[in-house]
């Protein structure tokens, strides 16, 4: 089966999951729905052969769930418990959105994304800016790694004794190089015709397959269940 999803489906997934994580699950049924929704992007990550991140997310989420249900309750007291409640609360609540976003950013080609945006009649200005943001994630990661290396070498990875400097030392070179790269990147893109008046075409043929519709259905149903059980009944 072709596991490649249409970028529009992916965006819809992000939308629904983000909405659902803002509503807390209170009954066992809602918990089941929520966990099922988290499983979907995890399975999709595995389908895209991203085993390491899938495993990491699964473990993180599983630990948070087990801790929440088995060891923590409203009567928990003590420092350890309260720290754990903090961690588990955040992880259980927001990890689904994080996993989905991670899956989308990691598996969507910029080209696909641009043509999906075009199909949805998003203005070029917004589509290009979002595409540049996606293009920039790996670059920021690379730059950040080099800067961390340089800081380690200077022995100032933790601000050289002054924690207030920690952020400054990291951010200043990062901003400088990102601004430079962004500038060169736009120049290069413009010389290759980006931003022209001509309607952009795309070699990626986007079609919503059966699998896309299935996922859209599942996610809509999940959102529906949440809304109905929490606010209507």
């Amino acid at each position, binding site marked *: 089966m072709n596991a490649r999803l249409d970028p529009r489906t992916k965006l819809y997934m992000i939308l629904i999951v983000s909405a659902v994580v803002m509503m807390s699950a209170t009954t066992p049924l809602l918990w089941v729905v929520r966990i099922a929704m988290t499983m979907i992007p995890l399975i999709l990550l595995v389908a895209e052969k991203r*085993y*390491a991140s899938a*495993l990491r997310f699964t473990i993180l989420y599983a630990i948070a769930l087990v801790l929440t249900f088995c060891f923590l309750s409203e009567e928990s007291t003590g420092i350890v418990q309260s720290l754990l409640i903090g961690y588990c609360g955040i992880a259980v609540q927001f990890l689904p959105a994080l996993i989905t976003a991670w899956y989308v950013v990691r598996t969507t*080609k*910029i*080209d696909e994304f641009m043509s999906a945006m075009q199909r949805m009649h998003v203005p070029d200005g917004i589509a290009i800016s979002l*595409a540049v943001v*996606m*293009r920039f994630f*790996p*670059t920021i990661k*690379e*730059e950040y790694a*080099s*800067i961390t*290396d*340089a*800081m*380690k*070498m*200077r*022995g*100032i990875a933790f601000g*050289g004794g002054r924690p207030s400097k920690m952020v*400054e*030392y990291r951010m*200043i*070179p990062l901003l*400088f*190089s990102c601004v*430079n*790269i962004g500038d*060169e*990147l*736009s*120049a*290069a*893109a*413009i*010389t*290759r*015709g*980006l*931003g*022209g*008046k*001509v*309607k*952009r*075409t*795309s*070699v990626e*043929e986007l079609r919503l397959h059966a699998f896309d519709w299935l996922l859209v259905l599942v996610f809509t149903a999940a959102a529906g269940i949440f809304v109905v059980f929490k606010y209507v009944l």
Partner: protein
Amino acid sequence: MSENFIKIEHVHFKYKGSEKGLLDDMSLTIPKGEVLLLTGASGSGKTTIIRLINGLIPHYYQGDMKGSVSVAGYDIVKTELYELAGVVGTVFQNPRSQFFSVDTDGEIVFGPENIGMDAGKIKARKKDIVSEMHIEKLMGRSLFELSGGEKQSIACASVAALLPEIILLDEPSSNLDQGAIGSLREVIRRWKEQGKTIIISEHRLWYLKDLVDHVIYMENGKIRHEWSGSEFASMDDEKVRSLQMRPLSVSDIMSPDFAGKENDIQIQEIQDGIVLKDFYFSYNKKPYLIRKKKFQENDEGLSLCILKLTLPKNAVIGVIGHNGTGKTTFLKCVCGLEKDCCGIIETDGKEYKGKERLKICYLVMQDVNHQLFTDSVEAEVLLSMEKEDKERCDQILSSLGILEFKEKHPMALSGGQKQRVAIASAIAADAKLMLFDEPTSGLDFCHMEKVSGLLKSLAAANNTVLVATHDPELIELCCDYVLCIENGRVGYLRKLKGDIKCF
């Protein structure tokens, strides 16, 4: 029309915010099908000419411009940039910042998509370009995992995909090794055969010698000398040197036959050296859950594998090898930046393990912008000292000739000056083993000579300098030894003839 395909007439140009004009009454006509080489020192206006022809000046980089530029019948000042996309193509210097996509296929079709070409046509064109440039094996990969040479191939292919009549290359070989330069040269030759007009701005001259029809030497925004291709190819070394150009032919100093095997140095020969032991490293980490696995000598897929290596002290050692063969990995492992590599450095009877290696080593990175953190040059140097000692800081700065910039922000300095600030902090940190990653990529000959002088003086001041480079010129200028890395293993360590130093 064919006589003056590109016409630049009496152009004066000054970038916004800068005081000095960059181009001064520049006039130039380029006939169709010509291969033109622009050379000259950094800041002489080569890149400005490239930007005039592709329209980035005046549409993207703003400034005061007088005069007129016409390219293939378009008046640049009145033409929108996207209209030029199918006419002029540009390959930029830095492969890192000219890609819009994150995958190779997307990058090649990016240009044709922008000009609204039909999807079927784009696919056919992509297929043509890929087979023409022999890059089938690069398709379907992430751009971030390619080597410098492979990235530049993709950049050339993605420019060619728009079938421009005019192709501009702005210092395209800066980050390439000799092999990759060879393939770049093939690409340029093919374009020349197809009758494209090609303009190259470049410091490295040897690979273009037989390709160019016309050479322009620039100085301070003016054309200082002009030669035809054949005049240029037969120019004598003395003249080349007097014009501060990089040599037209390079010695085979990088080849394994140079200086002969008899000059190879065996480990036992060096008595009082810096010993590197047990450096193993791999990028393909095995997934682990609880404990990290240490790399072993006989692990598979090691990117670095050095059992024992003795480096001569107080010398400049050139580290050579192809793109992606492990030179940078070697440097990073030696100075302890790769945590998973647990080699030992032995010097003066002391052993340095793990993080201690960072204390005696200092790596000056290829992009020095990454290692400047503070708001003044002085603070930058003081940050590296265990105890702040302003007098010593002044001494170091003046020995490097940057004392006058003490109060300035490091980011406001030029590239060469930034490099010196980084070296100053290395000296301040009392590093005995100084590592340089490609310090001269993209530098003109004059600056290269300065860097080589600097490296020599560091070695004379009892430091051991390891310099990873693709520039045979630099090795010739300053290296006492060459260390060849092949697939992460030591190929050989060899003394260079004729330049034997007394210790």
